[in-house]
C-alpha cells in the first residue's frame, strides 16, 4: 500500500497558505472548506491530526471542523488512492450506461464504490450529476473530466502504470 495513514504536522508553507485563505473572508471559519481542500490537495486526505491542526488555525474546535468536513463529499477523511474516480450515477449517465461502466471498472481494477485498488492508484467514489450531460456517461479521474466514456476509454485510462508492465 502506498497510502500513508499518518500525516506529518503542517509545515510553514501550509500554515502560511491557510493564513492567506483566512485573510480572504471576514471570519476565519469561512475559510474552513478552502483550508480543508488545500491540505487535501497536498496530502490526498485529511487525517485526524491534520484536522486538529487546521481547526486550531481556524479558531474552531476539532469537533466543529469535523462536522463540516464530514458533511461535504469532496472532503476525504479516510485515505484515498493517488487518483479518485468520480463516476456519475445520476439520471442522464444512468440512461446511457454508467452501470455497465461500473461493472467494467470492477472487472478491470477489482474495486467497487468506496474501495481503493491494492496498488493505491485509484479509489472509486459515487458522484452526483457532473453537469456535462450532453457527453453522458461522464466521470472525473483526478482533476480530469472524461465524457462519452465507453469500456475502451476506461481501458485506456486505467492501463497499468509503465513500471508495472512486464
Amino acid at each position: 500500500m502506498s497510502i500513508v495513514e499518518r500525516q506529518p504536522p503542517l509545515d510553514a508553507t501550509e500554515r502560511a497558505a491557510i493564513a492567506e485563505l483566512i485573510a480572504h473572508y471576514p471570519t476565519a471559519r469561512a475559510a474552513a472548506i478552502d483550508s480543508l481542500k488545500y491540505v487535501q490537495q497536498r496530502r490526498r486526505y485529511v487525517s485526524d491530526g491534520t484536522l486538529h491542526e487546521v481547526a486550531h488555525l481556524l479558531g474552531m474546535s476539532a469537533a466543529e471542523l469535523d462536522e463540516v468536513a464530514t458533511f461535504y463529499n469532496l472532503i476525504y477523511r479516510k485515505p484515498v488512492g493517488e487518483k479518485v474516480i468520480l463516476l456519475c450515477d445520476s439520471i442522464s449517465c444512468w440512461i446511457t450506461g454508467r452501470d455497465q461502466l461500473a461493472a467494467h471498472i470492477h472487472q478491470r481494477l477489482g474495486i467497487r464504490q468506496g474501495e481503493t485498488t491494492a496498488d493505491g492508484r485509484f479509489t472509486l467514489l459515487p458522484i452526483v450529476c457532473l453537469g456535462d450531460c450532453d457527453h453522458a456517461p461522464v466521470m472525473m479521474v483526478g482533476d480530469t473530466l472524461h465524457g462519452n466514456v465507453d469500456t475502451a476509454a476506461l481501458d485506456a485510462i486505467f492501463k497499468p502504470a509503465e513500471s508495472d508492465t512486464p
Partner: protein
Amino acid sequence: MSAIPRLPLTRNIRRGAAPFSRAEYEQADGYLAVRDTLGKVEPASLITLIAASGLGGCGGGGFPTGRKWQLMPGKDQRPGPRYLVINADEMEPGTFKDRLLLEGDPHQMIEGIILSAYALQADHAYIFVRGEYLTAIERLNHAIAEAEAAGLIGENILGSGFDLSVQVHGGAGRYICGEETALLNSLEGRRAIPRSKPPFPQVNGLWGCPTIVNNVETICNVPHIVRYGADWYRGLGVNGALGTKIYGVSGRVRNPGTFELPMGTPMRDMIEDHAGGMKEGYRLTAVLPGGASTAFLMAENLDVPMTFADMAKHGTRLGTGTAIVLDDKTCPVGFIANLQQFFARESCGWCAPCRDGLPWVERTLKSIEAGEGRATDLDLLLEMTGNLGPGRTFCALAPGAMASLQSGLQYFGPVFEQHIATKACPWT
C-alpha cells in the same frame, strides 16, 4: 459596433475554443454597459430597469429578479457590508447550462456582477462554484484578474467612487448548496443546511448582512438589458414569453446539448430541430422539462411552449430548462428509482421527512424494480408523495423529489403494477 443581438447570452461563445480575453470581450462591445453606467446612472434606476424587463430567476424558480432586488433594504437604512452571491452550484441532475456560460464567456459573468452589485450597492461579490467545475473556476479567476488589472474591479472603479471585490469560492460537493440559504451557510464555513425564512437573505443573509443570491444565467442577462433596454429584452421571447433561455436536453437524442433560444420555444422544436430528434431505434416516452425536480411531461404534450406558466398548465415546471428524455427502451420505474437515489443521498438530514422518507422511497422503488415489490407498495409511495410534499419539509428538496414520483405514479401506474404482478422488470 456590433449588431443588436437576438441571442445575447451565447453571442461570444465559441464552443470548444478558449473564451474571450478581456481585450477580445471589449472589442465585442463588452464592458461598455459598465463604462456607461458606473457613476453616471443612479443605482436605483437600474433596479427599476431590471424589474421592468421582467427578467426572472434562471436557477429554476423564475422569481422576478427586480422584485427580489427591491426587497433589499437601502444602504441608508442598513449601513455596513452588502453582498451579491452568484449561485454557480449547478448540480440539478440533467442540468449543464451554467457550465456553458461560466466556461464560455467568463467576462459576461463578471460584467453582470459589476452592474448588479452597483445596482444593489453591494461591495463584495462571491461566485459560489461547485468544486468539480475546475475549468470554470480557473477561467473565472483569470477573468477577475484581467478585470482588476483594467480597473473594472477594485476600489473607485473607473473613477465612479464605487468599490467592489469579486471572489470565487469553490464548493466541496452536496446538491443542497444550491438552496440559497444553505449556500450562505456553506460560504460561512458551516454545514450546508437551509435556514428558516423569514428573515430572507435580502435582509439578513451572509454574516447577517443584506445579501442577494442570484443564478449565473440570471446575472449574465443584466449587461444586455442595461445596454439595450427592457423593451428589447421583452421582445426576444415568443409565444407571449420574454427574453431568451439557455435550454438543453440530454438522454437518447441525436445531438444532446445546450441551445440559447427565445423563451417560449416549444419543447418539440428544441428536441426535434435543435437536438435532432431521437436516436435511431428509440421513441420518446416523456421528458422531465427542467431537471430531476420537475414532473413528467408526456410525449403528447411536446408542443407546449417552454415557459414557467405553460409548464404549470401541464402539471410540471420549467425548472432549469434543461430537459431529460425518457425513451421507450428505459424502464420508467428504474428511471424514477435513480432520481430518488440522488435525492435520498443529497438530503442534508436536517428535517425528518426528507432524511428518513427519501431512503424509504428509494428502497421501495428499487425493490419493485428488482421484482420484489408488494401490492401495498404503491399506496405507500402515493402516501409518501403527500408526506414529503410541499409544506411538510424545511426546504424544496423533498417536494422536488416527489414531482417525478407523483407524476410517475399517475402516468405509469400500469407499469408499476406489472412489475409487482409479474415480479420482474419488463425492460430487463
